């Protein structure tokens, strides 16, 4: 682990669900020791997330949890007991960073708010993330990433203009905010190294996600314009869309953004007669006749596989790509070249694939580390080795159900 970027850093990780654990996953995969504090009385909902190893649910069988929490340790600790809080504080005293994504006020209620933690460790970096931030009238309103995607404006602009919005897949803000969170946490670590000062970071997933829509928001504030969903179209490119190919639900995305690309595109299609009609020769003509254009293109694409179309287009310098399913991703030669999947063997999930970070360091590469922890798997390690606890105290805490 010494050759890793964050070697020597320790995180007391109170996060659960997705946004928090996906943030601390970056930290553990770069060599930090990330200790999750978990309780069976307050099970991380991701531990019940499908799919499961062997198809059977179980709190240690979730492949979803296993992907988000690989590389981390688990301390099973009941925070509704005074001794549990004391033990948490002992751990925090040895940590560089405390991370949490509970409803704002929860950590304070336990006596683990930033002001308290600063007394234990003055330079502690506390990272709090929640859907709508630590302050404000809606700070404690219940939330899910799959709901925030709509509040933040993404759902409205995804889908077809003549239909209700479909939104994009999943709890998208849960995935756009972790890299932003890591950026500020890493900056805070270096800031501490330079100045000796810690800080409390308050990252609202709502606010962070809006960064991804900033130009649309400016179009409203500067031009009073509401942008609507428009399928796959683009104002300054045509064709620009997903075209049906041969086979069951197979599509190829194609984007033509210049005259040069249009010429090459037509050549790949064999320069059909329709392509040299005046109405299709210019971008503006193609935009005005886009429905016809798309229909004519699809007559060609329907006869070919998506893979073949991608290869032909790319050879001609036209951006095109298969609309890949999860099965396609598994077999994608480029992702294989990138070693995109780290295959781990977990005692209950079994052999399973987890995703590597989407970037590669030339000198200090990320590593998967251990598979995701069973709940409380590292109680002995944390208590004995890290905290120097006696056997007697350890057993006492187990009996008192402080440790789980």
């Amino acid at each position, binding site marked *: 682990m010494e050759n890793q970027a964050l070697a020597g850093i320790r995180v007391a990780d109170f996060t659960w669900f997705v946004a928090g654990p996906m943030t601390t996953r970056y930290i553990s995969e770069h060599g930090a020791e990330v200790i999750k504090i978990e309780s069976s009385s307050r099970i991380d909902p991701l531990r019940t997330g499908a*799919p499961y190893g062997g198809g059977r649910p179980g709190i240690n069988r979730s492949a979803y949890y296993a992907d988000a929490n690989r590389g981390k340790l688990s301390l099973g600790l009941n925070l509704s007991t005074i001794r549990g809080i004391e033990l948490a504080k002992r751990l925090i005293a040895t940590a560089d960073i405390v991370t949490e994504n509970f409803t704002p006020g929860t950590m304070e209620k336990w006596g683990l708010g930033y002001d308290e933690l600063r007394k234990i460790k003055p330079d502690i970096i506390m990272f709090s993330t929640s859907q709508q931030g630590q302050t404000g009238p809606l700070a404690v309103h219940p939330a899910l990433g799959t709901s925030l995607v709509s509040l933040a404006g993404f759902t409205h602009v995804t889908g077809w203009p003549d239909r209700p919005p479909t939104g994009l897949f999943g709890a998208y803000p849960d995935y756009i905010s972790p890299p932003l969170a890591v950026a500020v946490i890493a900056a805070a670590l270096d800031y501490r190294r330079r100045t000796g000062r810690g800080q409390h970071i308050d990252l609202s997933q709502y606010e962070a996600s809006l960064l991804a829509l900033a130009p649309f928001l400016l179009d409203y504030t500067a031009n009073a314009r509401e942008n609507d969903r428009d399928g796959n179209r683009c104002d300054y490119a045509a064709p620009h869309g997903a075209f049906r190919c041969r086979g069951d639900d197979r599509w190829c995305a194609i984007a033509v953004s210049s005259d040069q690309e249009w010429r090459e595109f037509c050549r790949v299609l064999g320069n059909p007669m329709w392509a040299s009609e005046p109405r299709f020769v210019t971008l503006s003509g193609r935009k005005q006749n886009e429905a016809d254009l798309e229909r004519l293109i699809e007559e060609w694409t329907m006869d070919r596989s998506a893979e073949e179309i991608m290869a032909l287009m790319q050879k001609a310098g036209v*951006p095109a*790509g298969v609309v890949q399913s999860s099965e396609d991703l598994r077999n994608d030669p480029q992702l294989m070249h990138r070693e995109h999947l780290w295959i781990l063997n977990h005692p209950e999930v079994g052999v399973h694939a987890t995703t590597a970070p989407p970037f590669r360091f030339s000198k200090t590469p990320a590593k998967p580390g251990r598979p995701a922890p069973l709940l409380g798997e590292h109680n002995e390690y944390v208590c004995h080795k890290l905290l120097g606890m006696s056997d007697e105290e350890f057993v006492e805490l187990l009996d008192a159900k402080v440790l789980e």
Partner: protein
Amino acid sequence: MKNQSQVNGLLEPFRVLDIAGAEALVCGKILGDLGADVIKVERPGGDRARNIGPFYHDIPDPQKSLFWFAFNNNKRGITLDIETLDGQCLFRRLVETADFVVESFAPGYMDKLGLGYALLSAINPRIIMASITPFGQSGPYMDYKANDLVAWAMGGQTYLSGDPDRPPVQVTFPQAHVNASAQAAAAVLIAHYRREISGMGQHVDVSIQESVTYTLMNAQQYWDIPKIILKRSGCYRAGHAQGAMMRTVWQCRDGYVNLTILGGTIARLTIMPLVKWMKEQGAADEFLLSVDWANLDTHIVTQEFFDRIEEPVAKFLLLYTKAELYAEAIKRSFILYPVNSAGEVLADRQLAARDFWEHVDHSELGVQIVYPGAFFKSTEANGGIRFRAPLIGEHNLDIYEGELGLTPKQVASMKQANVI
């Protein structure tokens, strides 16, 4: 590294040379929002990304692109043609005092110009260089071209979104580049922490395609273990219950709301308060009232079950507006959110209470424009917008004369030779 002075942001002592294109502008923006001194390096005449709309008052001028404004705040700007030998010299001189370089040229391009990582790190071993490309610096697709649409498709997101009876669909404001840029920022700052201790930088190879795969939730796990291919399901959500889909986008009187019905411990925050409200209004049928929500595991319910719940709930929601439903959800503490348009986001009272919006001076237009503000808050530094995106070559004199010591005559000569 600049001289350390009064801290204005967490990354205040550090400089970024941002020579990236449209795909990776957000990386430099994030670093600038964190307080770094970001120098946007554009070709003479201005970067092509300045032609991307929308435009201020719909005037298609390279100094009025709202896309450019949004993703280049907190950056100063210089012009430089790195395809000229003089330009390469100037760039190398700038690297001597820089901490980060961010670029998004095709693999091999920077090497060809004598500006690849190996050469730059020989000049400045501390340098951290982020290279952001559609598929990465090597591999069978390294030379493939991809815009945002194609990267989103190749990364697996497009397949999962949209109505099943229509083509799979992207987000109308494309997201692949923003995601990759955010990943790049996280990556260079992880490398930065290490660099400040060891003194050695490194090269960071970011794949836009792979950045898209990061957002796929448990879709890859569904293929990995039960070999289920998750598919687009329109206003429904696939992947929560094995084999069944639950509605998430519901029509209401004046638009749409987002509501996910979940059982178990989270039922008291989703369906239970809604059913209670429906009961008060006489709209809850016997079936809804008979379900033991707290003990219902929605991971394993059937499609018939979801459909049966949907009918009375859908009818009920049609009676109310987005605002009414959201207000009631807040009052009764359950998870229902409006499907907001941009204007509704701007009117959001939580964002207003947190002073999220910033009024940014655009003296060149004679106005202030309201921007989304800091993506984080902290007790030590704020992350907001210190200044607007640069005009073309706005800081050429500050950098070329002020820092590199070129004389006005030399600058003029470089300008006329189209080096600057």
